[in-house]
C-alpha cells in the first residue's frame, strides 16, 4: 500500500508544472554555473603554474643562504568547482620570511584584478542547490495534506483501513522519488562536464567526496521536505501553507545568512589591521635598536670598501670582494641578528595571533547565528567537504608555519647563521687583507691601504687606480648556485577521503540529521492529529 501511495504521489508530481519548471531551471542553471566555475578553475590553475614556476626559480637561483626565502604556492582546489567557500577571499601564495611568521596568503585570488566587480555576488553549484532545490522541496510538499483535504481524497483514503503513518511515509517517498532524479541529474550533468574538461583531474578521494556531497544534498532536501510537510499538516488551506512555507524559505535562505554576517560585523568588533601594523612596526624598531646597539660594540673593519654588495629586507644580503676583517664583521653581525630576528618573529606572532583570533571570533559568532538556518549549515558542511572552508585554510597556514620552523631548524642545525656562506659565495680561503686588495687592484702602484689613502685624499677620493686589475672571484656571477637539495621543501599533504573532516563536520551533519528527524517527528505527530474533514 505504501508503494501505491508513493507511486501515486510520484506520478502526480511528474505531470505537474512545478516538476517541469524545476527540471528546466536546473537544466539551465547547473551547466552554466559548473562551466563558469570550471573556467574559473582553469584560470586559477594558469596563475598557479606561473606562480609555481616563479617560486621554483627563486628557490633555485640562490647563491647565499640569506637569500633563501622560499615561497609556498597552494594549488587551486578542484572541488572548489562545487563550492567556493572562502577560497575567493584568501590568496594562494605565502612567502617564508625569517622576521615574520606567515599570517595571510597573498596572490591573485586575494586581490581580484578588478575590485570594482566585487559589487556582484558570485554563485556556485552549492548555492544553486541551496536556493533552488530547497524551494523545489517546499513547492512539492506544501500541499501534501492540504490539497488532498481540499479535494476530499484524504477523507476517502482514511475511511479505509489505511493507517496514517503509511500515508505520510508514502507521501515522503513520493516526493523523494520526484526529487531524486532532479538531484541525480544535476550531479551527473556536472560530473560529465568535469570529466569532459581536460585540465581537471580528481583523485579517488575527491570522487568519494562528491558522492558524499550528493548524499548531503539529499539530507538537505529531507530537512526542507519535512519543513514543508510539517507546515502542510498544521494548516488547512494550501494557499496559507505555501505562504508560510515561502516565508520560512526566505528567512532561512536569504535573511539568516545576511543577518548573521551583518550582526557579527557590527556586534563583534575586530582589532584594526592598522593597529596590528603599528605594533609590528614598533617591534621592528626595537629589533633594529638592539641590533644597532650590538653593532656599535663590534670593532670596525679595516676598510669599508666593497666591490659587490646587495641587500634587501629581512636581512637578505650578499657581498663579495671585501676584506677579511669586513667579512668577519658581517659574520658577527649575522650571528647576533638572525637568531634575534627569529625570536622577534615569535614576539610579532603574539600580536598577529591576537588579531587572527579576533577575526576568528567574529566568524564564529556569525557562524553560530547562521546555524539557525539549515541552508547555512548545508553550505558550511559542503565547504568543509570541498576543502574551501576556513578550517582548511587554517590547516594550510599551519603547515606553512611548521615548514618555516623546519627551515629555521635546518639553518640552525648546520650553523649556517654563523658561517660565511650565509652572506657570501666567496670561499673563506680567498678572503684578502686590505693591503693585498690594494696591491693587486692597483697593479702594484700602491702597496698598502695607507699609501692609497694618502694618494686618494689628495685626489678627491678617486677610485680610478683601484680599477686597474680585477681580482677573480669577487663578483657573484662567478659562483655557482647553492646546492639546496638537502633543504627541506614544502610538501602539500595528500589528504585521504575524510581527512580534516573531524568533529566539526560530523557535528554539523548530525545537526542536519537531528533537525530533519525533529521536523519529521513533529509532522508525524501533527498528521496523526490532523482533522481530515
Amino acid at each position, binding site marked *: 500500500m505504501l508503494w501505491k501511495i508513493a507511486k501515486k504521489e510520484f506520478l502526480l508530481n511528474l505531470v505537474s508544472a512545478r516538476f517541469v519548471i524545476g527540471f528546466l531551471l536546473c537544466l539551465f542553471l547547473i551547466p552554466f554555473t559548473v562551466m563558469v566555475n570550471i573556467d574559473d578553475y582553469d584560470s586559477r590553475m594558469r596563475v598557479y603554474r606561473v606562480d609555481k614556476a616563479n617560486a621554483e626559480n627563486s628557490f633555485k637561483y640562490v647563491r647565499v643562504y640569506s637569500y633563501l626565502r622560499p615561497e609556498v604556492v597552494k594549488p587551486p582546489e578542484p572541488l572548489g568547482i562545487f563550492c567556493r567557500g572562502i577560497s575567493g577571499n584568501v590568496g594562494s601564495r605565502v612567502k617564508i620570511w625569517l622576521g615574520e611568521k606567515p599570517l595571510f596568503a597573498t596572490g591573485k585570488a586575494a586581490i581580484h584584478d578588478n575590485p570594482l566587480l566585487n559589487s556582484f555576488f558570485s554563485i556556485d553549484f552549492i548555492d544553486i542547490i541551496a536556493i533552488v532545490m530547497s524551494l523545489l522541496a517546499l513547492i512539492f510538499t506544501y500541499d501534501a495534506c492540504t490539497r488532498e483535504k481540499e479535494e476530499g481524497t484524504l477523507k476517502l483514503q482514511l475511511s479505509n483501513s489505511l493507517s496514517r503513518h503509511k500515508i505520510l511515509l508514502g507521501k515522503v517517498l513520493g516526493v523523494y522519488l520526484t526529487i531524486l532524479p532532479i538531484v541525480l541529474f544535476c550531479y551527473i550533468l556536472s560530473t560529465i562536464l568535469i570529466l569532459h574538461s581536460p585540465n581537471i583531474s580528481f583523485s579517488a578521494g575527491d570522487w568519494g567526496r562528491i558522492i558524499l556531497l550528493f548524499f548531503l544534498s539529499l539530507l538537505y532536501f529531507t530537512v526542507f521536505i519535512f519543513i514543508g510537510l510539517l507546515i502542510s499538516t498544521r494548516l488547512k488551506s494550501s494557499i496559507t501553507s505555501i505562504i508560510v512555507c515561502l516565508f520560512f524559505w526566505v528567512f532561512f535562505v536569504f*535573511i539568516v545568512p545576511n543577518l548573521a554576517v551583518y550582526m557579527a560585523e*557590527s556586534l563583534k568588533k575586530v582589532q584594526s589591521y592598522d593597529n596590528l601594523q603599528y605594533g609590528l612596526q614598533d617591534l621592528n624598531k626595537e629589533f633594529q635598536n638592539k641590533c644597532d646597539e650590538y653593532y656599535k660594540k663590534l670593532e670596525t673593519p679595516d676598510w669599508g670598501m666593497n666591490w659587490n654588495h646587495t641587500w634587501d629586507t629581512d636581512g637578505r644580503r650578499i657581498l663579495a670582494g671585501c676584506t677579511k676583517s669586513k667579512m668577519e664583521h658581517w659574520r658577527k653581525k649575522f650571528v647576533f641578528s638572525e637568531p634575534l630576528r627569529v625570536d622577534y618573529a615569535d614576539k610579532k606572532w603574539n600580536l598577529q595571533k591576537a588579531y587572527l583570533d579576533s577575526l576568528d571570533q567574529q566568524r564564529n559568532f556569525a557562524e553560530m547565528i547562521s546555524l539557525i538556518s539549515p541552508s547555512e549549515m548545508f553550505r558550511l558542511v559542503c565547504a568543509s567537504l570541498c576543502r574551501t572552508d576556513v578550517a582548511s585554510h587554517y590547516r594550510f597556514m599551519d603547515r606553512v608555519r611548521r615548514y618555516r620552523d623546519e627551515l629555521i631548524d635546518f639553518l640552525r642545525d648546520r650553523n649556517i647563521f654563523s658561517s660565511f656562506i650565509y652572506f657570501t659565495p666567496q670561499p673563506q680561503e680567498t678572503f684578502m687583507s686590505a693591503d693585498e686588495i690594494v696591491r693587486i687592484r692597483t697593479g702594484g702602484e700602491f702597496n698598502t691601504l695607507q699609501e692609497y689613502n694618502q694618494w686618494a685624499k689628495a685626489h678627491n677620493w678617486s677610485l680610478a687606480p683601484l680599477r686597474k686589475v680585477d681580482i677573480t672571484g669577487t663578483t657573484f656571477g662567478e659562483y655557482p648556485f647553492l646546492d639546496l637539495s638537502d633543504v627541506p621543501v614544502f610538501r602539500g599533504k595528500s589528504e585521504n577521503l575524510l581527512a580534516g573532516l573531524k568533529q566539526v563536520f560530523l557535528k554539523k551533519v548530525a545537526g542536519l540529521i537531528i533537525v530533519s528527524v525533529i521536523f519529521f517527528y513533529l509532522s508525524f505527530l501533527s498528521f496523526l492529529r490532523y482533522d481530515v474533514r
Partner: protein
Amino acid sequence: MIRNIIGKEILKYLLSLRFMLSLLLIISLFATGGFMFVGKHRQESNDYWRDTNRNLSSLREHTNHLYELVTCRQVVWRRPKPLSICAEGFENTLPDRFSFDPFTWDLPEVRSRSNFLLPHFSDIDWVFTISLIVSFVALLLTYDSICGEKQTGTLRLMLAGSIPRHKVLLGKYIGAMLTIGIPLLSGLIISLIVVVSYRAINIDTGQWFKILTIVLLSFLYLSIFILSGIFISSLSHKPASSMVVLLLVWVGLVILIPSFGRIIAGTFHKIPARVDMENRVSEAIKQIRENSEKFGPGAGSWNSYNDNPPAAAKYYSAQVNARNTITDEYLQQMVGQAKTGRYFTCISPAIIYQRASETIAGVGVYRVVDLCRQIKRYQESFKEFVRSRDAEDPDSLHLLFQFPSDWVAENWHAISDERVDFDHVPKFQERDLALGQSLKLTIWDIGLLALFNLVFFAASFISFLRYDVR
C-alpha cells in the same frame, strides 16, 4: 466605485495572514538593520577620522619646505555616509584606499577592513530589504488577485455589475500599492527613527530629499512586482499555479540574474591583467629612458639635475605622464567591465533599482570612480597652489615635476624651499553630488523602471480584458 474596490482590497489584505507575517518580517528587518547600522557607522567613522587625521598630520610634517610638499604622498579613505542606511552599495568589498602624490595616483585599493574569513553578503540596508523581501511580499499579495476571485466566484459577481474591467484592475493595483505601503513606510520610519535618534549621524536637508527620492524609487520598483503579480494571476486560473510561476520569475529576476553579473562581465568583457598593465608602464618608461636625449642633452644622465635642469624636468614629467595615461586607461577598462556586468543584468529590475538608489545615495562603484575624478581635480589645485607659492621665491628654478628622489628635491632648488603655512595648503575633501546631479545620472534607470511598469501594466490590462471570468 473604484474607491469601494480599493477599500475592499485593502481590508482583504489587512486581515490576511500573509500581511501579518510580512508586516512582522519587514518591520523587524528594518529595525535590526537600523540598529546594526548605527553600531557599524560609529566604528567606521572612528576609523575614518583616525586615518584622515593621520594623513593630515603627515601633510603637516611636509610643510617645512615647499619642495617637501611636492613629494608628500597622501592617503585618502572613503568617508562613511549616513545614507548607507538606504543603500550600502557593497562598499565593504569595494576599493576604499586612494593613495596619490601631486603628480601620480595609484589604482584604488581594497584595504579590506572587513574580515576575510566571513563570506560576502550584503548589509541589511533598505535596498536589500526592499529589493529582496518587500518585492517578494508584493508577489505574495497579488498572486491571487484575479484568479483567487475567480475561484471564489466573486469576480463574476463583480463584473455582472456595471463596473468596467479597467476600473477593477486599477482598484486592485492601487489597493495593493497602498497595502504594501503600510509595512514599507512603517519600516522606513522605524529605521529612520533609530538612525536619527543616534546623535553622531546628522542628515541635512539635501539628504532628506535624497531619502525621499529613494522611497519614491522603491515604490516605483515595487509597483513592477505588483503589476507582474496581477499579470500572471490574470493569465492563470488557479492561484497555486500562478504562485509557482511568480516564484520562479522572482527567483530568476531577483536572485539569479544579479548573481551572474560577475560571470558575464568576466566572460564578455575581458580586460588585461594588472600585471600586464604594470609591464606596459615599465615598458613605456624604458622607452622614455632610451630616448631621453629628445628632452634635451643630458636629460637622462644620472646628474641631469645639475647639467640641464629644464630637460630633466621634461624627462621626468614625461615618465609620470606615461604612467598616468596607462593607469587612467586601465581604470577606465575596469569601470567598463563593471558597467558591462551592470548592463547585462539590467533585465532584472532589482539591479536597476539597486543601481539607481546607490547613485542617489552616492555610494557604490560610481562613487569610487567619482572619487578618483575628485582626486585628480585636487591634484591640479594642489599643483596650482605650489606654483603660486613657488612664484614668490626668486631663488627657485620654478620647475614643478615629480622628483626622482627626496635627495634631488632637497638639493636641487627646482622648487622653493620656503616654509609653507599649513592652513593655506589645500586639503582634500570628498564632495557629494547634489540631488539634481545624481538624478541626472539615474534618469536612465528611472526610465527603465517606468518602462517595466508600463509593460507589465499594459500586459495585465490586455490579459485581464480577455480574461474568462466564469
